[in-house]
């Protein structure tokens, strides 16, 4: 085989963190330092291999490297394979995931230092990284689904890492269940495509199945349903409306987890999934429109919510939702390359922002921005990197975020003006809330942070200080990426890598539209200025503004997150389902289903109780019964004969 990359090497990317997970679980439970270093080492090697793979794939023009698949098991017609798929998209994702993961692991060495569950943390981190890498490498839908679920489980464990906090435990549960609701769609899609098309292979679905639909052999409805199933999975995993409610709660997890899992990688898996099946999406107009409008609604809605948050991680969480929505509607309108591009840049700057927020809280023990303030003086590195990340997010030229966001907007301008308007609006809001976050966190007076909860490890909030170097170095590296990662778009370079993964040839080029550039930059500048006026200069006073009758209802709506949580959790789940349907079913079970059984038993008993009185001990009763029996039988025989 003359392959650019040996298959074993690709598998190595996956198995390194797997090994790290098992080694920590089995042997290093009591040795946190070794556990951390092992994880960092394993992921570091994985990163190196990933980069090598990317380079090789680029050499192939981004086309898939033809690894053969391996049969895992079969049951009748069902043949379940395991195989690796390596193409431009995969390789980029591999590098992004292992890269961010490596930096986060290094950061965590400092951030999680002294935590009682340090080894457990790294075990799960390894587990997550492995699952995420597996998800990317999967060459068929079933395998993808397997890892899809596994990253969900990893997310559960990492959100609930501090399981002694009831909020964390609840958030973990919520995250898993809400995403699983979306996963049902994915599962249904999987079942449907296997039943109708008889294959689970990604390449086959993207090429042959789409072709067969085009030829009318397979139904268009089937394809649309399949695409909608995929979309459901993506909506759950990428926290899109209406399944977005889990992600803000998921911020209960350690901050590096939020940085890696809940901003850079796992939540992006939804986008990755849709990108992976872009040809399918492309072939179904309805599904594309669906995704587009889900994305648009989410992008604006989440951005608005980010404005009203006081918790810095929640601001970032809603920002993540909004940015993922950007990618979603980009896919919906057909901007495949732009979506993947934004996915990559977002991974860098958003993890940077999270890690920065973590760094701030490392000093203050809180994520509540109203308890921070003025940190730029004591934490200069954090401040600078955070600002870089924020600018990148806000789409300031020439930072990475600008290029990717701009490309999406240009595509939107081209294909769908309504989407473009909303996209622009979301971009403006982004600039506003990021500036607000910077202002509240790093500017103004220091509000004193929060004392650590009794019995818990924490910093001394009275004297905030810069984070140790093990944390700041990853911040700096990520800042570099947040600045420079976008430059790979020049000349359509990045686009050519990922477009090579598609079955049909596409022209890869660098997009530039000066009008869009000016519009988006102007809007961002205006929004930023407004935020600066409000939150840094405090004129007008935001508190008074909030109380203004015109703003108050809106603010309350945002503060209550559009009442989505209330609606979903309290009304639907607790009242209607748990208190209504389930209670009724349970009562039915106890009273009717079991009641019939016990009733039959009791009925027999009662019948015996009555019948025994016929045995009244009176001899002649017995004699009469004997005679009566005889005469009745005789009569019956004679009559019926």
């Amino acid at each position, binding site marked *: 085989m003359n392959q650019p990359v040996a298959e074993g090497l690709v598998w190595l990317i996956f198995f390194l963190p797997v090994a790290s997970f098992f080694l920590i679980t089995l042997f290093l439970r009591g040795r946190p330092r070794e556990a951390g270093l092992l994880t960092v080492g394993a992921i570091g090697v994985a990163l190196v291999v990933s980069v090598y793979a990317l380079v090789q794939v680029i050499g192939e023009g981004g086309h898939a490297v033809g690894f053969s698949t391996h049969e895992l098991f079969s049951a009748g017609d069902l043949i379940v394979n395991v195989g690796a798929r390596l193409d431009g998209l995969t390789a980029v994702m591999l590098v992004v995931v292992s890269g961010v993961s490596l930096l986060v692991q290094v950061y965590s060495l400092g951030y999680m230092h002294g935590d009682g569950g340090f080894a457990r943390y790294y075990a799960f981190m390894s587990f997550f990284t492995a699952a995420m890498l597996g998800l990317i490498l999967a060459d068929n839908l079933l395998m993808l689904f397997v890892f899809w679920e596994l990253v969900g489980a990893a997310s559960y464990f990492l959100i609930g890492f501090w399981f002694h906090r009831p909020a964390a435990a609840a958030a973990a549960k919520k995250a898993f269940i809400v995403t699983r609701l979306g996963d049902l769609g994915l599962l249904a899609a999987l079942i449907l495509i296997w039943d109708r098309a008889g294959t689970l292979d990604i390449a086959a679905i993207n090429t042959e199945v789409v072709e067969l639909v085009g030829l009318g052999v397979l139904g268009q409805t089937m394809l649309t349903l399949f695409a909608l199933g995929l979309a459901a999975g993506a909506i759950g995993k990428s926290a899109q409306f209406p399944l977005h409610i889990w992600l803000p709660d998921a911020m209960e997890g350690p901050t590096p987890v939020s940085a890696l899992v809940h901003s850079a990688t796992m939540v992006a898996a939804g986008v990755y999934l849709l990108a992976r099946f872009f040809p399918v999406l492309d072939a179904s107009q309805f599904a594309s429109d669906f995704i587009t409008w889900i994305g648009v609604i989410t992008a604006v809605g989440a951005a608005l919510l980010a404005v009203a948050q006081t918790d810095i991680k929640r601001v970032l969480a809603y920002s993540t939702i909004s940015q993922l929505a950007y990618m979603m509607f980009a896919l919906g309108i057909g901007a495949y390359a732009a979506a993947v591009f934004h996915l990559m840049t977002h991974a860098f700057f958003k993890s940077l922002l999270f890690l920065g927020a973590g760094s701030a809280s490392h000093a203050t023990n809180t994520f509540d921005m109203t308890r921070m303030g003025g940190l730029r003086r004591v934490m200069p590195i954090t401040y600078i990197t955070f600002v870089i990340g924020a600018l990148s997010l806000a789409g300031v030229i020439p930072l990475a975020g600008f290029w990717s966001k701009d490309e999406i907007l240009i595509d939107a301008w081209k294909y769908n003006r309504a989407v473009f308007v909303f996209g622009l609006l979301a971009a403006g809001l982004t600039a506003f809330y990021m500036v607000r976050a910077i202002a509240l966190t790093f500017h103004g007076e220091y509000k004193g942070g929060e004392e650590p909860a009794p019995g818990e490890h924490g910093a001394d909030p009275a004297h905030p200080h810069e984070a140790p170097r093990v944390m700041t170095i990853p911040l700096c590296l990520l800042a570099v990426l947040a600045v420079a990662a976008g430059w790979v778009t020049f000349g359509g370079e990045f686009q050519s890598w990922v477009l090579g993964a598609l079955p049909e040839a596409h022209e890869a080029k660098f997009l530039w539209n000066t009008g869009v550039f000016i519009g988006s930059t102007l809007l961002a500048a205006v929004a930023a200025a407004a935020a600066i006026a409000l939150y840094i200069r405090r004129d007008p006073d935001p508190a008074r503004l909030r109380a203004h009758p015109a703003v108050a209802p809106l603010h309350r709506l945002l503060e209550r997150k559009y009442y989505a949580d209330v609606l979903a959790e309290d009304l639907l789940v607790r009242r209607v389902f748990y208190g209504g349907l389930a209670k009724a079913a349970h009562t039915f079970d106890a009273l009717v289903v079991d009641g019939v059984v016990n009733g039959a038993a009791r009925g027999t008993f009662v019948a015996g109780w009555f019948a*025994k*009185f016929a*045995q*009244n*001990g*009176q*001899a*002649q009763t017995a*004699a*009469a019964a004997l*005679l009566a029996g005889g005469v009745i039988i005789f009569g019956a025989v004679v009559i019926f004969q």
Partner: protein
Amino acid sequence: MTISLEEYLIVGAILFAIGLYIALSKRNAIGVLMGVELMLNAVNLTLVAFSRFTDTGVALSTQVFVVFIIAVAAAEVAVGLALAMVVYRNRQTVSLDRINLLKW
């Protein structure tokens, strides 16, 4: 009209039924025994009537049967009266309405 088998059989049936009624309705154990004796007599009458009228096989075996029935009746009465006496010794009564310690 000649008197034939049917008449005897009917008389036997009536006698059997009356004996049955006595056996079922009398409170006194000895009364019940009387009823049983009447039933056996009815059977005897039926048998003898068969032996007189029917022309099948060995008619006399029916009469032999009657002899055995009479013997059995005597034996039953003897044992029955002895048992009634034992009951009386224990309970000072032979009323079947009261001899119902064993029930349900």
